[in-house]
């Protein structure tokens, strides 16, 4: 919600110079739904879930549980990584939608509360500007970020050394790697969408 609030605040100040402050609804709606909702969700998931994956799997590495899986003929990738990745792929769209809604609400709070745009006007503009294409692209971002966060967390956990401090390092590294991967993926997807004209 705060991101939507910030976007609306900064956007309105700039748009007001051209008498176009009503388009803040388009601005906030498109950015939140297409991009920022997924990015904020991805960053929070990297910090919460990616770190958790790295810590869990890193601890298993320290306790030789992963060695035990391998020697019992159970693939750690299939048993540990794949379920976690599937879980994030399936679940990420939901918090993304929630983040989108909260971001738009933040925009409403600023626009209606401070800049005298009516609620009806704001909602109408949002409904017109935010197309299904934007929504699907936003959800696609969410799914991609889910994969990246799961991969970063699980990979860092599997690469963890055999000590307690190594688990801490793996956890931190998983968060940083996840966030960097999210930013890089955003750039790539944005470029691809531009090329495809969507």
């Amino acid at each position: 919600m705060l991101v939507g609030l910030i976007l609306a605040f900064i956007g309105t100040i700039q748009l007001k110079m051209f008498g176009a402050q009503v388009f803040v609804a388009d601005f906030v709606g498109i950015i939140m739904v297409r991009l920022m909702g997924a990015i904020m969700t991805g960053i929070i998931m990297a910090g919460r879930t990616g770190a958790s994956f790295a810590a869990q799997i890193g601890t298993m590495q320290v306790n030789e549980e992963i060695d035990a899986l391998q020697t019992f003929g159970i693939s750690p990738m299939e048993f540990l990584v794949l379920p976690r990745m599937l879980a994030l792929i399936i679940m990420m769209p939901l918090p993304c939608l929630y983040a989108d809604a909260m971001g738009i609400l933040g925009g409403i709070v600023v626009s209606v509360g401070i800049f005298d745009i009516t609620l009806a006007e704001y909602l109408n503009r949002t409904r017109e500007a935010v197309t299904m294409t934007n929504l699907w692209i936003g959800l696609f971002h969410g799914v991609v970020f889910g994969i990246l966060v799961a991969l970063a967390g699980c990979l860092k956990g599997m690469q963890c050394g055999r000590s307690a401090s190594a688990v801490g390092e793996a956890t931190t590294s998983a968060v940083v790697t996840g966030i960097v991967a999210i930013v890089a993926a955003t750039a790539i997807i944005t470029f691809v969408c531009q090329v495809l004209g969507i």
Partner: protein
Amino acid sequence: MGYGDFIVMRDLNFSVNRGDIFIIMGASGCGKSTLLKILIGLKRPLSGQVFYGDSNFWEAHPSEREQMMRGFGILYQYGALWSSMSLAENIGLTLQRYTKLNHRQIQEIVSLKLSLVGLAGFEGYYPSNISGGMKKRAALARAIVMDPDILFFDEPSAGLDPISARSLDDLILELRDSMGTTIIIVTHELASIFAIGDNSIFLDVDLKTMTASEDPNRLLAESENPTVRRFLTRGKEGAVEEKL
């Protein structure tokens, strides 16, 4: 065998007879656990071969190697039980994956194996709820659940009180005598070595090679190697110089 350019041990040449309890012994840091990892498929040797029967373990196709590994049972030093699963789930996992047994049959086998190691009734407990000794026993139940041809133990007595260690030795002997299982044990616990070992090798940490290969009791009686004697007599005999 080694890690990158660091050689841990070289020129290891030994064989293990079927049905023997074979001890791999040596000072701390000599490479016993590294050797064990090579034998059980966790680490590839820098050079050399490992044969199980006529099958070259590390030259085999990964699927063949995996098939050979299904005949192994491994007890890790601290148990390595999967912490997110109950004891029953830990022990039953391989039965679920590699047999066509139904749930009830798996539960029965799990209960039987837990009874064998003195943990009857602990099926629903999690590794975090039991003591270190109980974890070892549960891990042993997991290691024997598929009735393996070869059992590997990594420091089985580590962390156990003398009475529990003795009970474990008795259990190991019983497993060998009743199931004919070949058992390979990495340890430096002298009481166990002399009590249960049929044959052994000694890994010399300074020379980075094996310097003895014999029944441990005969080594104690007859070996003239000072390092081996020092190890087997807990420092009473053999090399006097201390490395600081």
